[in-house]
């Protein structure tokens, strides 16, 4: 498989730029988008092995971004990163199409492990 390419969608720019750099240290090429529209535009034009998505996004809500990704790109696994109070159903915490979800603050090595599992690369 080519080097893993991942898209992070989160409106905290300092958070995602740091995570992009840290993923780079671990051999993963990561890019970021600061809102859902930008994220969907990048997915249309770039190839990614996985998407890491925060549900709390400005403008287009994360749940709608998730719906569109799952509908239009069902082969790309999505990992949700959520803060407390995010709209995750405690009874069914993994919405359809979501490989896994992690709570902030995320341990980078756990995220890398989940990304590799999601794309079938152990």
């Amino acid at each position, binding site marked *: 498989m080519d080097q893993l390419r991942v898209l992070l969608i989160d409106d*905290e720019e300092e958070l995602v730029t*740091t995570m992009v*750099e*840290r993923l780079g240290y671990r051999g993963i090429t990561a890019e970021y988008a600061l809102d859902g529209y930008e994220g969907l535009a990048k997915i249309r034009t770039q190839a990614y092995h996985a998407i890491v998505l925060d549900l709390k996004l*400005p403008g287009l809500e994360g749940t709608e971004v998730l719906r569109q990704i799952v509908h239009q790109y069902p082969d790309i696994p999505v990992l949700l990163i959520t803060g*407390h*109070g995010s709209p995750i159903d405690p009874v069914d915490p993994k919405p359809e199409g979501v490989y896994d979800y992690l709570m*902030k*603050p995320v341990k*980078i090595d756990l995220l890398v492990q989940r990304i590799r599992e999601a794309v079938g690369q152990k």
Partner: protein
Amino acid sequence: MSPQEAGDSGAELSRNEIAFFGKITASVTHELNNVISIIEQTAGLLEDMIAGEERGVPISIDRLAGVSAAIQRQTQRGLGIIGRLNRFAHATDRPETVFDADEVVGNLVELSRRLASLRKIGLEFRPTATAPKMSGNPFVFQRAVFGAVQTVLACGLADHTVTIENRAESHGFKVSVEGATSGELGEGPLADLEAVAEEAGGSLTVESGGGQMRLCLQFTVLPSTEGRSS
């Protein structure tokens, strides 16, 4: 005193007041979680850089300075959030007190900023120049102002700014909340807001048209000869 009697006396927070408190604290703690996440990732980046140097990749002094500045920036951001939440929480200390309406509304606007940014709407606060003193319940006052801000945000246009302006008048004090909106509000939200304004000792007027909405909360204020303390 039974719970029922306590509720009847007004000594307990109502369900709506608890919901208001919950909405503010949920938003603020979410933002604090982001601050902690950034500090966590930045500290982790430092570890990555050290590990890289042990493998022969030199650490850039400029990069180190950038990492240190990021941690300091986020620490200050977190302290600011905690301070604002603490001032907000202390508004429940006394049901009747004298307070500076500029300070209270300014703090509330800062606490509301993330909720607005999720709608891609900016908030601008314009205080008076006279530090108007109000007598009443600062928590209920904030709930009324927050209700007005939320009402305008609910039908506000993305990529616009909602302006919250305090204005001292001859026999009163006014908070106006104005922004570009995409449609008319139903009667329900405005009736609820009107009731909250009355509970806070004020009244609500609504001006709407031409794609703009302006909600005005009118209160009486204590006469004060004091200047702004800081």
